[in-house]
C-alpha cells in the first residue's frame, strides 16, 4: 500500500491581478516526511501555505490535505493539521495560558500532558497577557499549541523567527518527535541551516516556480566541487573544460567550480607548478546562491 499523502498539489497556481504569485506547483508530501520549502522573500512560500490552508482560492490547479480539498473541505482538512504563522497573531487581551487553551479547544484534539511538557521544554511562562510577550514568546505559544495537537501534518511558516538558538535546538528536537510519530511536516524557511538540520526533502521556490526538488543527497549532486588553486606566478592559460568555471580570487589564485569529476582539471593542472590546492564540496548555502544569484537574480554558475 502506498504511503498516505499528507499534502498533494497539482499544477497549483495563484494570480493576484497581473502578478503570478505561484505558477504550477506540483508536490506530494507523504506522512513521516519533513519537507523543507526554501525560497527568498516574495518567492511565493506564504501564498502556497495560504492556498494549502484554504485561506485563498487557487486561480487554477488544486491542493488537498489528506485527500480533503483545501478550499472546499477546509474544516475537514484543518482537523488533521496544525499551523504556525510566521507572524504570531494572537489575542492581546488573553493570557498565554488562555491562548493555549483557546487554540486547543478550537482545534479539538490536544494532548494536555504533552502540552505541559512542551511548556517546560520551551521554558514558557504562560501567566502573562499576550500583549506583554516578546515576539519569541508569542511564537512559542503558537509552536506549543501546534505540537500539542499531535496533528498528522504540521504546516510551519518561518517558525523559528524570533527564537533564540537554544530554543531552535528544542524546536528541532520536537520536530524529530513529530516525525517519529508519523507526522508530515511542511517547513517553510529561508534559514538553510535549519532546513539542512531537520529536513528529509527540499523544494526550492523562485518567482513562484518550483525550481528544484529532491532529497538533500540528490540536491548535493547538483552541487559542484570548489577547487582553490594557487600558482607560483600569474596563472597560466588552461584548456577549456566542459562546465568548469574559473574565477580569479587573488593575484596568483583561481577558484574553479567543477560540476562533475575533478580528474580532468587535475590533469590540466599537472606541470603548472601548483603551490597549493584545496578542494571541498559546495555548501547548501552556495547551492542556494547559485540558484538565486546575488546580482542579476539569475546567476547560475558553471552553466
Amino acid at each position, binding site marked *: 500500500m502506498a504511503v498516505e499523502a499528507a499534502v498533494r498539489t497539482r499544477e497549483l497556481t495563484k494570480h493576484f491581478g497581473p502578478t503570478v504569485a505561484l505558477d504550477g506547483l506540483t508536490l506530494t508530501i507523504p506522512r513521516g516526511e519533513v519537507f523543507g520549502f526554501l525560497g527568498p522573500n516574495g518567492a511565493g512560500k506564504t501564498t502556497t501555505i495560504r492556498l494549502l490552508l484554504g485561506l485563498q*482560492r487557487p486561480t487554477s490547479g488544486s491542493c488537498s490535505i489528506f485527500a480533503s480539498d483545501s478550499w472546499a473541505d477546509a474544516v475537514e482538512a484543518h482537523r488533521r493539521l496544525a499551523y504556525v504563522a510566521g507572524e504570531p497573531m494572537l*489575542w492581546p487581551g*488573553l493570557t498565554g*495560558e488562555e491562548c493555549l487553551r483557546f*487554540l486547543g479547544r*478550537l*482545534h479539538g484534539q490536544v494532548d494536555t500532558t504533552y502540552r505541559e511538557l512542551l511548556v517546560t521544554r520551551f521554558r514558557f511562562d504562560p501567566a502573562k*497577557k499576550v*500583549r506583554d510577550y516578546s515576539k519569541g514568546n508569542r511564537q512559542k505559544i503558537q509552536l506549543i499549541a501546534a505540537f500539542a495537537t499531535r496533528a498528522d501534518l504540521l504546516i510551519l511558516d518561518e517558525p523559528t523567527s524570533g527564537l533564540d538558538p537554544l530554543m531552535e535546538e528544542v524546536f528541532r528536537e520536537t520536530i524529530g518527535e513529530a516525525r517519529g510519530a508519523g507526522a508530515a511536516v511542511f517547513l517553510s524557511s529561508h534559514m538553510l541551516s535549519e532546513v539542512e538540520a531537520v529536513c528529509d526533502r527540499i523544494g526550492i521556490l523562485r518567482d513562484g516556480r518550483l525550481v528544484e526538488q529532491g532529497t538533500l543527497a540528490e540536491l548535493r549532486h547538483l552541487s559542484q566541487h570548489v577547487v582553490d588553486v594557487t600558482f607560483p606566478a600569474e596563472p597560466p592559460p588552461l584548456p577549456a573544460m566542459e562546465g568548469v568555471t574559473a574565477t580569479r580570487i587573488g593575484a596568483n589564485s583561481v577558484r574553479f567550480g567543477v560540476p562533475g569529476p575533478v580528474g580532468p582539471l587535475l590533469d590540466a593542472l599537472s606541470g603548472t607548478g601548483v603551490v597549493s590546492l584545496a578542494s571541498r564540496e559546495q555548501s547548501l548555502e552556495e547551492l542556494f546562491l547559485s540558484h538565486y544569484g546575488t546580482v542579476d537574480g539569475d546567476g547560475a554558475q558553471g552553466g
Partner: protein
Amino acid sequence: MDEGAEVWVGRHAFRIERVRLTVVAAIAALYAAANVIGYRDTYPTLADRVRFASAFRGNLALRLFYGVPHDLASVAGYAEFRLIGLLSVVAAGWGVFAAVRALRGEEDDGRYELMQAGVIGRGALVTAVLAALTVECGVLWLAIAAALLLTGTAAGDLTAAQSIMVAAAAALPGFVFAMVGGLASQLAGSRRGAQALGGALVAAALLLRIAADLGRGLGGLRWLTPLGWAENLRPVTGLNPKALVLFAVAGLALGWATVVLASRRDLGAGLLATHRRPRSSQRLLGSPTQAAVRAELLTLTVWVVSAGLFAVIIGGFAQSISEQARRSGLARIAGEVTTVHGYLALSFVLFALAVSLFATSHIGALHDEESTGRLETLLALPVARRSWLAGRLAVATGSSIALGILVGLLAWAGAASQDAGVGIGDGIAAGSNCVPVALCFLGIGSLLFAVWPRVGVGAALAVVGAGFLWNLVGALVGAPSWLLAVSPFDHVAAVPLHEFDYPGGLGLLAIAVATGVAAVEVFARRDLRLG
C-alpha cells in the same frame, strides 16, 4: 536620520486617520451647509425668523443638545448656535479617539518598533504624532469654514470672519481633546484604558456644558471645559477672544505634559497601569463566538453607560421641557412634539443613530481581526468561515438589541423619577424602535466587509452618517418622498408618540437579514486579505 523618522511617524499618523478624518470633515461640512441653506429657505422673511426665534428662544430641549441660543433671527446667529453646539462635541469625540488610535493603538500593535531601535526618541515621536493631529484638526476647521464661506458668506448672510471663526469654535475642541487623548495614552496602560479615560473626559465635559446651559446660575461652568469655551467664543453675537486664549493655552499645556510623560515611561507601560499578574479564566473561550462575547461585554458596558446617562437626562427633562414648550406657544408651530411622548420620540431619533453607530462599529472589529492576521490564525483551525462571520453578526445583533432596550428603560427611569407620565412600555417601545434600523446598517456594513475588505469600517460608518444626514436635510431641501425613503432612518417611526411602523420596521429587518446572509456567503467565497 532622526528627522526622517519623525517625518515618517507624522505621515503615518496622518495616513491611518485619513479616511475617518475625511468622513468626519465631510459630514461636518454638509451639516454646516445644510443648516445655513435650510434655515434660509424655511424662514425666508424677517417676520418668519422673529416668529421662529421667539418660539424657540427658551426651549430647554434645544439647549440640552446645542447650548444657549443668542440670536435665532438671523442665518449667522442660527449657524453659531446649531453648528458650534453639535460640531464641537463631534470634534471633541473624534479628537480624543484619533489621538488614542495614533499613539496608544499603534504602540500596542507594535508599530512603533523603530522607537525601540533607538531611531527616534519617545518624546520626538509623540511630538510628531501630536503635530499630525493638529494638522488634522486644521483640515476639519477648513472643511467647515469652506462650507460656511460657500453657502453663508457667498449669499451675504455671514461675514468671512464670522464663517472662519464659527468653524474654528467648532473645530478647536477637537484640538484640545486630541491632546487630552494624547495624555490619556500616556496615563492608561492600554488602548482600551486610554479610550475609556478619554471618552469619560469628553462625556464629563458634555455633562458640565449641559449643566451650565440648563441650570439656573450655573453659566460660569462653561469656563471649565473646551466645549464651554466653544460656546463662549460667540463669533457672531459678541466675540470673546478669552476663549481663544484658553484653547491655545490648554492645548499647548496638555501637549507639553503628554510629551514629558511620554519621554519618562517605558514602552508599553502606563503611569496608571497596574502591574498585578492577570488571572487566567476559561470562561467563554470555547469558540470564536464565545470569545467575541467575552470581548463584547466591556464594549457594551461602555456604550450602555454613556448612552444610558444621556437617556436618563433626556427622560428626566421630559416633563419640564414639554410643559415649558406648551407655555411658550411652541405647540402652535410644532404641534404634538410638545407633548412628553412627542419630546421622547424626537429625542430617540438620536438614539436610533447611536445604536446604529454601535452596531456598525462591530464591522470595525471584523476588519481588525482580518487585518491583524488573527483571522488567519482562527481560520487555519477547524473553524468554518460561515459560522465565524454568522457568530460575530449574531453577537453584534444581540448586543444592539440589548443597548436599544436598556437605553429605552433608562429614559423611562429618568422620566418616571419626575412623574412625567411615561409608562415602562413606552420606554421599551422607544428603545426597541431603534433596533431594526441599526441591524439594517449592521447588515449593509457586513456586506461591505465581505465584498470590499480593503475599504475598512469608514465606509460602513459613512453609510450611517449619510443616511442620518439625508434624513435631516432631505426634507429641508424639499426632496420627494421616494428619495427621502432611501434613508433607513426615514422608516423609523416617532415611537412612543406614534405606533411602531410595521411595514417600515419589518422592511429594515428584511434588508438586515438579506445583506447579512449575502455577506456570509460572499465571505465564505473570497480570499482572505493578506496580513
